[in-house]
């Protein structure tokens, strides 16, 4: 017990030190904190896909649902604006994976119509509850459903952050709504340039 206690204190101090020295990213650095991108899902054409199919580009991963009244359209529109500020070459190296955690309502067709409104690099994905739970748990996030109203509409609670992966699929950054556009842009450019 006592040894564990001292070990814990030492580890805590070490973590603090690390936190203080590696802060040159302007959004949240999650390198080493999260595993590489991996999933089994269904794409907008109803085909089964894995993360391997999306390697080779810098990937932004975001969870949501198309009936989302606020967070999802706002976040996706903001991403669309940010990607629009990248030059042509850099843009070709980036894709956005929008994973719907509401597969009951979000059919592949509906997802395709929804994501195409934000740009051609926005790709809709969804899956079975097991597949979605596995992917959420992998990135330590979750989702859940509210009670349906008289019309059968319900609210879905889901992660509000964007996970950024490099071309090799390694987790790099977590981008929040509160991060300024320039900060996101600067960090994205850095990841695109570093390959």
């Amino acid at each position, binding site marked *: 017990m006592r040894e564990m206690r001292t070990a814990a204190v030492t580890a805590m101090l070490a973590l603090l030190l690390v936190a203080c020295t590696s802060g040159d990213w302007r959004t949240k650095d999650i390198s080493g*904190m999260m595993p590489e991108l991996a999933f089994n899902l269904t794409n907008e054409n109803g085909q089964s896909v894995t993360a391997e199919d999306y390697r080779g580009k810098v990937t932004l991963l975001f969870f949501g649902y198309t009936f989302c009244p606020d967070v999802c359209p706002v976040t996706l529109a903001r991403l669309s604006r940010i990607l629009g500020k990248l030059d042509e070459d850099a843009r070709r190296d980036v894709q956005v994976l929008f994973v719907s955690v509401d597969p009951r309502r979000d059919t592949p067709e509906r997802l395709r119509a929804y994501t195409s409104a934000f740009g051609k690099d926005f790709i809709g994905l969804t899956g079975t509850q097991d597949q979605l739970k596995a992917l959420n748990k992998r990135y330590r996030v979750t989702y859940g459903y509210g009670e349906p109203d008289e019309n059968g509409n319900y609210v879905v609670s889901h992660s509000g952050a964007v996970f950024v992966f490099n071309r090799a699929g390694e987790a790099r950054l977590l981008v929040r709504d509160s991060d300024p556009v320039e900060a996101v842009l600067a960090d994205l450019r850095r990841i695109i340039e570093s390959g």
Partner: protein
Amino acid sequence: MASFPEILGALAPYEWQPLVTLVVGGALVLFLRGLAAGTRPGGWRVAAFLLGLALMYAVTQTRYDYYAQYVFFIHRLQHLVLHHVAAVLIALANPLPVLAAGMPAGLRERVIRPLWRARPVQWVYRTLQFPPVAALLFVGLIYFWLIPSIHFDAMLSRDLYALMNWSMAIDGILFWWLALDPRAPGPGHYSVGFGKRCLMLAAVAFPQIVLGAYIVFADSDIYQIYDVCGRPWPISASTDQTIGGALTWIPSAMMSVLGVVIVLAFWHRHERGAEGRRARTAPASAAST
């Protein structure tokens, strides 16, 4: 009614941590072996130890842990159990003699006892258990893990999350063992005077009240991590934060009151015991003069 697979699913850990299973399982085996070896700690002490152990296991290694990772107030309840309630139960059970009796004699006499008596170990233990240090650690850990940026990382990183919960459980047991040790200070063991313990318990109550009230009355969303990670059901951030703050504030402070009551009872019993000893020795000394 929940079906059998649902119940099994709820009892299974959300994220299995072998170290928790090992330590809780090991403590349980040692305790049962200690009972089998003939120690008689009394029914309520056995119950307190087993309940404390079961609570610690339940809040970290069942479906409960899933909700604790994504809902702030359920996380606060988890820490209330680890750092206060279960730790108090384990400390009150005074399980060390039973656990020691449950150990294989060779291991106990050749490894654990010499290690425990080693000077650096005693030095570390007595430093951590020096009341001002113990009080500072107890409150400091609560504050530390609730610093928004630290809390953010702890909820995002699996390792840091585990470290956070271990630190709360271990510090909880150390602190409450110091506060609720039934023995008065004496030769051959380390314990602290009853009056000092009451002061220590009062001292840790106020910072917890201040922190809890700060969270309850905060206008803004202090812990963004729960937005980032999503919620298991659509509970509003402000409701979650208010309940979580109240749990940090009220039950934790009540535990200090309860602690003081128990310490006063120990103190009273000790004084009565001392009077009894004086009464028994007084006639003899009177006769000799």
